[in-house]
């Protein structure tokens, strides 16, 4: 837990520095000598645009060295490590980046929603904060994608055909009709939503990169208008999906253990026995003792591995 606390503090400190940088850069200063009355400010998107491909690169680089760290056994206290420290860092830094981007993005104006800022320094501050958010967002997305592909976790995230009846059954059971189907580590409904996230995140990144290209090359106006439109549509979509995500993942009482696990990392054996029967069956044989450094691995026929 201490490690997670440090990670959280680290994220906030980083954000603090980023926010200060964004603010400082957005203050007006005299622009052209000989033209009194002409001012400008430092737009980080323009002056530090190289940070964007670098953040993608870093995400890929660090992600390729990251390990799949979730436990596949139940420990002595009857707890399972569902999300390790890497996951903690990745999820929460991504979440904060997303929130920062949404808030600054809406403040700057998206689709039909009004723009709440009209003072150039405020606009500059929002744009620079957006830039900070973009750098962090890109890093975390590419980190996640690289890691999960290389470790094979992606297979647990992506849906398979059997997920559709499983999800329907899950919701029916929640409403009181029928029995809960047997779920793996990730619920079928979660897996079904993963590609949805993916499409909109991909859309927002692609449109965003096209928009950022305008700071470097002379882009056709029509392309920019389309990119801005796509960016706005994806923003709205992501906000909606995020609301559902937060509601289903943290607000409703059945999900409280899940949100706890995203912070502490652990879920209880009873919890997975009740809600993630398939996963339970996969790992129930694996128990770790306090002193042993290695574990007894009892291979399970149901488990498949791949790289």
């Amino acid at each position, binding site marked *: 837990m201490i490690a997670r606390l440090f990670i959280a503090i680290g994220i906030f400190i980083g954000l603090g520095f980023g926010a200060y940088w964004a603010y400082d850069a957005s203050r*007006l200063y005299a*622009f*052209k000598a000989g*033209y*009194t*009355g*002409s*001012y*400008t*400010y430092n*737009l980080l*998107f*323009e*002056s*530090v*645009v*190289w940070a*964007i*491909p*670098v953040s*993608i*690169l870093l995400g*890929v*680089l660090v992600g*390729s*060295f990251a*390990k*799949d*760290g979730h*436990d*596949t056994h139940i420990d002595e206290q009857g707890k399972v490590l569902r999300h390790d420290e890497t996951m903690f860092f990745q999820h929460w830094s991504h979440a904060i980046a997303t929130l920062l981007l949404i808030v600054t993005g809406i403040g*700057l*104006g998206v689709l039909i929603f009004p*723009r709440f800022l*009209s003072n*150039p320094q405020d*606009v*500059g501050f929002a*744009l620079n904060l957006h830039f900070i958010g973009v750098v962090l967002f890109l890093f975390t997305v590419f980190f996640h994608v*690289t890691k999960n592909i*290389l470790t*094979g976790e992606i297979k647990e995230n992506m849906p398979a055909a059997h997920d559709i009846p499983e999800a329907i059954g899950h919701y029916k059971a929640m409403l009181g009709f029928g029995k809960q189907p047997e779920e793996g580590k990730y619920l079928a409904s979660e897996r079904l939503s993963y590609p949805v996230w993916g499409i909109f995140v991909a859309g927002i990144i692609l449109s965003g990169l096209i*928009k950022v290209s*305008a*700071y*470097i*090359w*002379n*882009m056709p*106006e*029509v392309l*920019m*208008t389309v990119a*801005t439109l796509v960016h706005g549509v994806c923003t709205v979509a992501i906000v909606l999906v995020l609301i559902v995500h937060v509601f289903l993942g943290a607000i409703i009482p059945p999900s409280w253990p899940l949100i706890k696990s995203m912070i502490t990392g652990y879920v209880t054996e009873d919890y997975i026995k009740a809600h993630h029967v398939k996963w339970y069956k996969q790992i129930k044989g694996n128990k770790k003792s306090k002193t042993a450094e290695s*574990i007894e*691995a009892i291979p399970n026929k149901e488990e498949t*591995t791949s*790289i």
Partner: protein
Amino acid sequence: MANVPRKASRRDFLKVGSASLIGLSVGALFPGGKWLDNKIYAIPASGGYLLVDTKKCAGCLSCMLACSLAHEGKENLSLSRIQIMQDSFAGFPNDITMSQCRQCAYPPCVEACPTKALHADEDNENARSVDIGKCIGCQRCVEACPYDSGRVVWNHIDKHSQKCDLCANTPFWEEQGGVNGKKACIAICPMRAITFTNEIPEQNDRGYNVNLRKTAAWKRLGLPSN
């Protein structure tokens, strides 16, 4: 796989290595965002300029009404790309200011724009205009204009910058506009206090103020010719 520290396999190395290589190559294309700067130093001069006679102006604001009508299709003084300011109680000639875009030879607004939305429009004799699709609303052009009432207008309704384009883009007026066409403010001014030239005017503090009152007819009215 169980929780065994993964040994770096050849596959992993190839993956990481190639990713890094691609990333570095792409990164090399971004030399610190300096690319656009090289093109800025040679912004061509505009082929057209509005000249005004502030002493001839009657403060009727018809030019402002015409400008917003031709460009936006509605009447809004705050969206007009020429601004006339006046004080009812002040004495002539300091009671009226005409603020039209000077199509500066060294335009700070063009230099300030990070996305080239505000640019010298090749299709309009390099008049400085805004491609609104590329405007990100950073408002640096608004701040960059050195003149008291900035000649770049922030359109608070459609959320983008706009400025005098010498009527090149007037979707609500069926006349051919632009440097080589008709300008709404000039066509509408009942005092004929706005005119046009292709030559770069003398750059001074007078804001392209010229004397358009040297006719006998003007003198006949009892109004000053100087």
